């Protein structure tokens, strides 16, 4: 399976995916920690994918989304953004709205 197919499979199997440095319980980077904590705060059940464990995945996810940085948040296969956008969406209340619309949280 190509790395791209692997990414598609991860996105298909998990409604909310966070490609991050480290894990939700032990983030290795402040930006990854910020997004992970935001999701936890909203009681979102999400899959954290540690890109530090897989160099191919780390490179391919950047091509996949045409986005050069980690973390990257996906909801129902749609790329939502990196740390800055997630922070803005959270502060405006739009992240919660989006998660409710997509039936991730109540």
């Amino acid at each position, binding site marked *: 399976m190509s790395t791209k197919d692997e990414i598609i499979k991860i996105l298909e199997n998990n409604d909310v995916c966070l490609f991050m440095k480290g894990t939700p319980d032990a983030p290795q980077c402040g*930006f990854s920690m910020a997004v992970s904590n935001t999701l936890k705060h909203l009681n979102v059940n999400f899959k954290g994918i540690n890109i530090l464990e897989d160099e191919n995945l780390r490179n391919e996810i950047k091509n996949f989304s*045409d*986005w*050069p*940085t980690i973390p990257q948040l996906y909801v129902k296969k749609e790329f939502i*953004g990196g740390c*800055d956008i997630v922070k803005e969406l959270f502060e405006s209340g739009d992240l919660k709205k989006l998660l409710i619309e997509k039936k991730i949280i109540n």
Partner: protein
Amino acid sequence: MALTIQEIEKLIKESIPDAIIQIKDLVGDNNHYSAKICSKMFNDLSKIEQHKMVYKSLKGKMGNELHALSITTEGKK
């Protein structure tokens, strides 16, 4: 190789000439910045597209020479 505030500004201006740019060196290490960028070119684009435009202006330096640049974008009338 770290980038200076002036270098970052210059790169962004080359791609987004009307940009009003405010960059802060967050910890004084030439490596962790925040940038606020306003441009007419952002009007009618999604946030993702706006940020992509800024990343593209940095010509692959983002995530490499430039470790951390937090971005806020805004359109302009």
